[in-house]
C-alpha cells in the first residue's frame, strides 16, 4: 500500500503500542489534537488517555518524565513539538538519558521524536536541523529517516531499542513522499546505512530530506555519464562507517550533504572518517554541501538561498567529477 511518511510513522507507533502494553506516548497536543503534524492522530481514540498523555509546555519535564517512566519498565515515546524546542529539554537528554547506562547501568529506553528541518516557511524557530548536538553526545542514538519505509521500520526499532533514541522526522517529508510500505511487522535496524542508489563515480553521503535532493541530482548527472552512489546514513550514531568507507573505496570521490549548518555539522565527522580511513583511495577532496552558517531565515527568497538544493549540489558534484 502506498503510504506517506507521516502515516508510516503513525503506523509504526501504533503497531508497537498494540504489541507492547508498556509503550505509551507523551507530549504537547498529541492527544485530542493528534499532534502539531498529526503524527499521533487517532491514537487517543484507539488507546485512550492512559497511553496518550497530553502534557503541559514543559520539554524538560517531558523528557525527564519519559526517563523516569522507563525506569519503571515502560517504553515512553516523547514528542517534542518542533526540534527547535528540544533545546528546552537539552539537559535531560544529554546529561540524564545519555549517561545513565554508562554510569550506573540503568538503561533509559526512551524515544524522543522531533520534527526537524526547513522548507515550510517556519523561520528560525520552526526549521532547525540540530542533530549534530546529539550525535556529539555519547550514549544517544540519533536516527533520521528519509523514506516512509525507513520511517516506519526505524520508529519500531527505536521503540524496541534499549537505549535512548532521538528520532528526527523531517517535516517537509511528512506529506511530500509516498511509497510502498509493507503492512506487516518489519523493522529497519538502527546503525545501518542504506545504499539508496548505486553508482560508480562519486559517493554522496547524506541523510534525512537531503537524500531526495541527492537523488534528483544523481538522475540529472546520469545523463552526463556521471554515476552517483547515494549512501543514506539513516542513523548518525552509532555510525555505519563500513558502508561509507566501502562506497568511497569503490567510487574514490565523496561529497557529504546535510541540511544543518555547515560549521560543526555532522558532515565534518563523516569527512574526517573518510579522510583518515580511505585517504589512499581518494581521487579528490571530500566536499561538503550544507546550509550556510546563519539561522534559518523566514522570507521565501532567503530560505531558498539558505537550503541546500539540487542546483548547488550539481555544481559541486560536476566539479568533483571533473577533478
Amino acid at each position, binding site marked *: 500500500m502506498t503510504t506517506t511518511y507521516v502515516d508510516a510513522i503513525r503506523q509504526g507507533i501504533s503497531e508497537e503500542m498494540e504489541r507492547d502494553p508498556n509503550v505509551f506516548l507523551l507530549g504537547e497536543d498529541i492527544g485530542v489534537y493528534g499532534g502539531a503534524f498529526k503524527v499521533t492522530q487517532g491514537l487517543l481514540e484507539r488507546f485512550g488517555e492512559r497511553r496518550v498523555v497530553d502534557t503541559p509546555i514543559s520539554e524538560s519535564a517531558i523528557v525527564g518524565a519519559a526517563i523516569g517512566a522507563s525506569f519503571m519498565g515502560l517504553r515512553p515515546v516523547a514528542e517534542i513539538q518542533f526540534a527547535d524546542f528540544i533545546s528546552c529539554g537539552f539537559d535531560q537528554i544529554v546529561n540524564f538519558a545519555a549517561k545513565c547506562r554508562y554510569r550506573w547501568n540503568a538503561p533509559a529506553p526512551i524515544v524522543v521524536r522531533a520534527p526537524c528541518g526547513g522548507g515550510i516557511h517556519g523561520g528560525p*524557530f520552526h526549521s532547525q536541523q540540530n542533530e549534530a548536538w546529539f550525535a556529539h553526545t555519547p550514549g544517544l542514538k540519533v536516527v533520521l529517516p528519509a523514506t516512509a519505509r525507513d520511517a516506519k521500520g526505524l520508529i519500531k526499532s527505536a521503540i524496541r531499542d534499549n537505549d535512548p533514541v532521538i528520532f528526527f522526522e523531517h517535516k517537509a517529508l511528512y506529506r511530500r513522499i509516498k511509497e510502498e510500505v509493507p503492512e506487516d511487522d518489519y523493522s529497519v535496524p538502527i546503525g545501518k546505512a542504506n545504499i539508496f542508489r548505486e553508482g560508480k563515480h562519486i559517493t554522496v553521503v547524506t541523510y534525512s530530506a537531503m537524500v531526495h535532493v541527492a537523488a534528483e541530482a544523481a538522475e540529472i548527472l546520469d545523463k552526463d555519464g556521471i554515476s552517483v552512489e547515494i549512501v543514506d546514513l539513516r542513523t548518525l550514531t552509532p555510525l555505519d562507517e563500513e558502508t561509507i568507507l566501502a562506497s568511497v573505496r569503490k567510487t574514490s570521490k565523496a561529497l557529504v550533504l546535510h541540511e544543518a549548518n555547515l560549521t560543526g555539522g555532522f558532515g565534518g565527522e563523516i569527512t574526517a572518517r573518510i579522510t583518515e580511513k580511505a585517504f589512499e583511495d581518494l581521487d579528490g577532496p571530500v566536499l561538503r554541501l550544507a546550509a550556510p552558517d*546563519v539561522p534559518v531565515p523566514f522570507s521565501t527568497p532567503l530560505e531558498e538561498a539558505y537550503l541546500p538544493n539540487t542546483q548547488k549540489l550539481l555544481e559541486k558534484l560536476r566539479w568533483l567529477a571533473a577533478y
Partner: protein
Amino acid sequence: MAAVKLELIRPSSGTERATVADQAGAETDPLADLARQSLYYMAMMREVEDRIERKLYRQGKVVGGVYVGRGQEAIPVGSGLAVRPDDMLFPSHRDMALFLIRGVSARQIFAQYMGRVDGLTNGRDGNMHMGDLSKRLVAIISAMAASIPVAAGAAMGMKYQGKDTVTVVYFGDGATSRGDWHEGINLASVQKAPLVLICNNNQYAYSTPLSKQMACANVADRAPGYGIPSEVVDGNDVLAIHEASRRAIAHARAGHGPFLIECKTFRMTGHSAHDPADYVPKHLFAEWSAQCPIARLEKKIIERGWASVEEVASIRARVVRESDEAVEAAEKSPYPDASTLLDNLYEK
C-alpha cells in the same frame, strides 16, 4: 459627523497620568480619552489581524505560522497605554497592539508577516517574532516563556542604571509551565527588579486546556511562592486592565519588585491560522463572544457619553482605511535579496 479627537497617547517620560477611576463622566472625563484611544487600538489590532489571518494568509501572501489575539485585545491595549515610552515591553505572540501603541505602523506589520524588507526583521523572521530596541520592544523567540528571564535581566539592568523605568513581559497560561517562567520570576523577585508580569490566561495552550496545564485555579496562585503581589483581572475589560496595570507599574517603579497580573480571557480563534479549534466546546465560543472587549468598550463609551455613535463609527472607519492603505503599501515592499543571506550574523 463630529471629528474624533484622537491624539494617540504617548505619555511623556517621567510623568504619571492621574489615576483612572471607573467614574461616569462627560466629554471632560479623563476616562473619555483613554477609552477612545483604547477603542482605536483594539479595533486596529483586530482589523490588522483579521486581514492577516482571514485574507492574506488564505491568499498565500502570508506564509508560516499566524497567531492572532482575537478577543484578547484589551490586554495589550489596557496595559500598553499605562506604560511610559521609556519602559521596556516584551510582547507575547498575541499582543500586536503593543507595537501599534509604540508607533510601529500597520504597514510594517503587514510587511513583517509577508516577509518583506519593511518588516521589523527584514524578512529574517516572521509574524510576531519582531522587535525594535529603539522603541523598547523586544522580539520573542518561539520557545514559550523564554522572554521571562530576559525581561528579568532588562529590569535588573534598569535598577543597575538607577532608572525609574519598568519592564513589562507578556505570556500565556501555557507558558507558565516552562522552567524559564519559574527561573525568570524567581530571579526578578530575589533581585526586586522592576518587572511587571502580565498573563493572558485564555484557557488554552494550542489544544491543551488549563486543566492539563496546571493543577491550581489561577496563575496568580503562584505569586506568593515568589513573595510578590498579584491581581486577577477581567481580561476583556480594557479599563480594568489599565487600572491594574497602573497599580502594578507603580509598584514596580517604586522599587517594590515584581507584580503579576492575570487577565482571564478566551482565545476566540484557533491556536493559529491553520487550526479550526475543533477541540474547543462550541458553547465556550458563544459565551465568550458576548464578552468581546471591543463591543463591551463601545457600549460603555456610548453609555457614558465618552463619544457619540458617530464618533465610534468614525474610529471604525479610520481603522479600515488605515489598514487598506497599509496592506497596499506593504505589498509594495520588496522581498529581501538573497544576496543578503549572510549579512549581520556578527557585528560589522
